[in-house]
């Protein structure tokens, strides 16, 4: 078995003493990825391995009358075929609610639902054998939206619910409902000088990570299984997989493989349990890798949403009240819908002070594709709507959009609609000021000094649709608020194991966590933290696996905060042990060992006055110091089920955008020319990575604004565009200039004062682009992604 675990981990990062926190250390996986040498999970290989393939439902809702696998089983090269009837133990799993069948149990509830598995000695054999499985479906009526899901006599997709939300939802096809009520909206409405309402819609965005779902399960001598897998949270997978296999958790050993992006789409299980089931059944290693088409069915998407907002303000531009109703389509299974509802509800007012709120957010069960986590997690949908409302209010009051927002911007000490006090910097007005102060790109920026036209700078780009005809510029602003970390009382912790030893006379730190490196740069930051805390140059990041405790999810902008916090905390414990060792070995030689504040710097123990007491390698000698620590951020509270009150979030993050667009008003095509972002990150542990995160998040928001949508047929609930031919994501020619302005206002509650970075830029980028297109066209534009039809009335 070779190369099976090759990932960015296991590499020693040697960066001298300059590679501590605050340095733009280069990531160890960067060059490998750019040159095509990085081993992704889809590159996993094992001698004698079989290939698994998943047969999926062509229907969105159907009863399975029978499944005949005999022809598939009789196919040469096929080693196993499994259906629901072959499952050895638990038959359902789920992140929060165990409502998702491992394989369809008599009924399929969405297009693409897994029905059967095949293992064969060649992927093509497996695929063809799966095509020979005869499934007799009886199609059932589909529910696709709130009306059909809650109509009299609507099919109940999950009868006999026992989940924690079942008791308080208004209809069994509602996964979870969260109101937030504060102040007196009726009284405030009576006092309002201006009231604006709007209805908004957000289409179904896909994470569109580039590395499709993939993993390799290897059966072990002890009856267990080793799973090499691209995921976002090893231990959450483990908690769900082990019961499906009927194995204790210590018999399921997981190692992170090379992950090609995640953005929330790898929080739920995809092929993990399937590969393990086939491996245990065949006693052979089994690899499953989805192709792009299957990947669109293999993971949850961003919840499409319908939002109705009403805001009232005084004549002088102060927000008085906000009422809204947010309906999220969770699709066939719960996934993380309850938490998405909590986010949408609690963040629905945006980064503004508004004392009177009446909010209702809910997620539906429908026969549409399951939706769950995606970068921004419920806050994206709300931000699109409330920012449109802010522009409407500004227009109604004759104020500049930035000025209206400034008058209502929250700041440190402001109170959220949930009653939670924002107790760290919240520089909302300053972020807006900064993007507004940037110079605008020149008018007719597509013309060179000599008058030549560069079509790449125009809507349509190289498709050559305009040389300036019909093109109108627009500028738009938006700002958003995102929570960092897991909320609502979740016990959100990370574990880090640090070893410090001398190797060939040089101190080396090894950082072992189960953190999923999905491209966010965690392995780089962990090495930086270890360098800073332990004063060593050489840091090895051990492969992420389940031999160490949970690192939580690589999501919710939390990994640098929480696992970074655990690494820091464990390093501090190592440092104490080093100093104890030093005192024992050398304490008698220098009084400072007992009296002074001692630091580890440049591989030495030094006093705070800079005097060198000993080399770290000499202190360590043959000893190896190893410490494992769990670390938690401060606890949060659940939201009250009726009022939504509660200090439910750990930390808030803020970003603001200014978008400059050129719109071809006759063809309805948009070129975003510049998309500037200002964001407070508390402390940039790696400024280069931070800038990359902000630019990437900004671009993902641009995608939602102008092109990215999974189109689901409203009649059949079938996905119409499961390919990169028709699910479009921005290319480099769609990517505008992305100026980034990073503020570092420390949050005293967080390690190093840092603030989670990854998600906030995804929120405000979408509404900023749409605001700019509204300004260019004068159209209301209540839905994203914008389509040429919306801009041309066709």
């Amino acid at each position: 078995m070779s190369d099976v675990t090759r990932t960015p981990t296991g590499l020693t990062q040697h960066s001298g003493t300059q590679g501590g926190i605050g340095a733009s250390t280069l990531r160890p996986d960067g060059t490998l990825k750019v040159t095509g040498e990085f081993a992704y999970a889809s590159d996993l290989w094992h001698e004698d391995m079989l290939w698994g393939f998943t047969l999926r439902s062509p229907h969105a809702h159907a009863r399975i009358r029978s499944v005949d696998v005999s022809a598939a089983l009789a196919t040469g090269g096929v080693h196993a075929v499994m259906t629901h009837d072959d499952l050895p133990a638990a038959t359902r799993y789920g992140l929060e609610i165990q409502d998702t069948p491992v394989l369809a149990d008599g009924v399929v509830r969405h297009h693409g639902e897994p029905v059967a598995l095949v293992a064969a000695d060649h992927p093509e054999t497996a695929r063809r054998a799966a095509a020979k499985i005869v499934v007799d479906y009886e199609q059932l009526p589909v529910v696709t939206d709130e009306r059909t899901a809650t109509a009299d006599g609507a099919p109940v997709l999950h009868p006999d619910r026992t989940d924690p939300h079942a008791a308080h939802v208004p209809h069994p096809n509602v996964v979870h409902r969260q109101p937030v009520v504060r102040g007196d909206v009726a009284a405030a409405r009576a006092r309002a000088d201006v009231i604006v309402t709007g209805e908004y819609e957000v289409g179904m965005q896909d994470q569109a990570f580039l590395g499709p779902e993939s993993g390799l399960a290897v059966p072990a001598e002890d009856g267990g299984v080793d799973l090499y897998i691209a995921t976002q949270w090893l231990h959450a997978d483990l908690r769900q997989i082990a019961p499906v296999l009927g194995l204790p958790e210590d018999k399921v050993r997981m190692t992170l493989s090379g992950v090609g992006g995640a953005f929330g789409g790898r929080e739920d299980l995809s092929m993990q349990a399937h590969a393990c089931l086939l491996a245990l059944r065949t006693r052979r290693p089994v690899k499953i890798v989805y192709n792009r088409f299957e990947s669109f069915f293999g993971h949850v998407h961003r919840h499409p949403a319908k939002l109705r907002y009403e805001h009232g303000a005084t004549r002088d531009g102060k927000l008085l009240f906000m009422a809204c109703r947010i309906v999220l389509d969770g699709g066939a299974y719960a996934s993380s819908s309850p938490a998405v509802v909590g986010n949408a509800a609690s963040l629905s007012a945006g980064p503004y002070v508004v004392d009177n709120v009446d909010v209702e957010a809910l997620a539906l069960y429908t026969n549409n594709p399951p939706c769950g986590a995606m970068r921004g997690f419920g806050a994206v949908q709300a931000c699109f709507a409330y920012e449109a409302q802010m522009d409407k209010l500004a227009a109604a009051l004759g104020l500049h959009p930035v000025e209206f927002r400034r008058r209502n911007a929250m700041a440190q000490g402001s109170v959220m609609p949930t009653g939670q006090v924002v107790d760290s910097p919240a520089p909302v007005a300053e972020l807006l000021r900064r993007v507004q102060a940037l110079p605008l790109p020149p008018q007719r920026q597509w013309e060179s000094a000599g008058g030549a036209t560069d079509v790449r700078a125009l809507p349509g780009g190289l498709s050559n649709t305009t040389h300036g005809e019909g093109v109108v510029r627009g500028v738009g602003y938006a700002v958003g608020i995102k929570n960092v970390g897991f909320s609502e009382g979740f016990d959100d912790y990370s574990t880090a194991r640090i070893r410090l030893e001398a190797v060939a006379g040089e101190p080396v730190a090894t950082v072992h966590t189960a953190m999923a490196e999905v491209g966010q740069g965690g392995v780089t930051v962990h090495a930086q933290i270890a360098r800073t805390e332990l004063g060593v140059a050489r840091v090895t990041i051990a492969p992420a696996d389940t031999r160490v405790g949970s690192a939580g999810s690589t999501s919710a902008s939390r990994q640098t905060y929480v696992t970074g916090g655990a690494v820091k905390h464990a390093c501090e414990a190592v440092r104490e042990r080093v100093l104890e060792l030093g005192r024992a070995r050398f304490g008698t030689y220098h009084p400072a060992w007992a009296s002074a504040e001692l630091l580890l710097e440049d591989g030495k123990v030094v006093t705070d006055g800079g005097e060198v007491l000993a080399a770290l390698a000499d202190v360590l000698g043959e000893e190896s110091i190893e410490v494992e620590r769990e670390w938690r951020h401060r606890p949060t509270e659940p939201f009250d089920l009726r009022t939504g009150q509660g200090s439910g979030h750990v930390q808030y993050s803020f970003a603001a955008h200014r978008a400059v667009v050129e719109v071809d008003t006759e063809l309805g095509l948009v070129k975003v020319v510049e998309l500037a972002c200002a964001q407070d990150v508390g402390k940039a542990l790696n400024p280069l990575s931070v800038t990359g995160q902000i630019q990437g998040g900004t671009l993902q928001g641009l995608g939602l604004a102008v092109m990215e949508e999974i189109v689901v047929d409203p009649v059949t609930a079938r996905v119409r565009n499961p390919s990169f031919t028709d699910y479009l994501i921005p290319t480099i020619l769609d990517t505008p200039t992305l100026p980034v302005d990073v503020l570092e206002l420390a949050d005293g509650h967080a390690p190093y004062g840092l603030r989670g970075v990854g998600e906030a830029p995804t929120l405000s980028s979408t509404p900023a682009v749409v605001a700019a297109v509204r300004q260019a066209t004068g159209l209301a534009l209540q839905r994203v992604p914008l389509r040429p039809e919306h801009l041309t009335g066709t």
Partner: protein
Amino acid sequence: MDFLRPASWAEALAAKAEHPSAVPLAGGTDVMVEINFDHRRPEYLLDLQRIGELHTWDADGPDVRLGAAVPYTRIIDHLADELPGLALAARTVGSPQIRNRGSVGGNLGAASPAGDSHPALLAAGAEVEAESVRGTRLIPVEEFYTGVKRNALAPDELIRAVRIRKATGPQQFSKVGTRNAMVIAVCAFGIALHPGSRTVRTGIGSAAPTPVRARAAEEFLAAALDDGRLWDTRGPLGPAVAGEFAELASGACNPIDDVRGSAAYRRRAVGVMARRTLGWVWGAYRGNEGRGAACA
């Protein structure tokens, strides 16, 4: 699936005659996608990559005889003067990797209404050189497209080359996609002025079951140019003429609603592209003796 690898054109024709169901394969940018997605499972694949002459062109006469497998990249790099409309269309095809492998012959073989080269071929004027063991025939490109993804080739025929009229006047190509690069056409429009014959030709892509010419628009414009003696005077085109031309181009569409765009939008967009590209080619004709069409 059997994989046939003829070493020569004669062998390829013989193989096609023997196995008429064989699917020709050159760059593979279309056929391989269909196979990978299991949309088709041909009995035989006929690999043409060893046949060198399919990758060459001859630009000595009034036509460019373009080998069926000449990749788009080479058209862009080497034939932009002779075939400006096609070169513009080639620039909009897929990604650099796709342009390095995809070819006009493949576009014609697939005969998708969304193929990027079709409007340019229709506008320039071209014949498809179809060959079999029985002989060679030239099929005017407007007769080549017979239905959605269907063409006029006989089962034993292969595309040897495309003979495309060299530009004698400005040409333009414009394509709407919902992304600024690497996108399948929602609809496309090609136009070529032919000052020698005092004719105008057009091509519309992705707005009808097959690529089509907007003949009423062409005839209207030719008449308007004649009436105003504009070929000689190189005077300006009135907005009414451009508007009518756009209207007629729009009327030549017979589009559908699909996931890429609505029928109404396609009609509108073809009209807009027709008006704009007419403006560009007429501007070029007035400005510089009718040559060149590059939008920089």
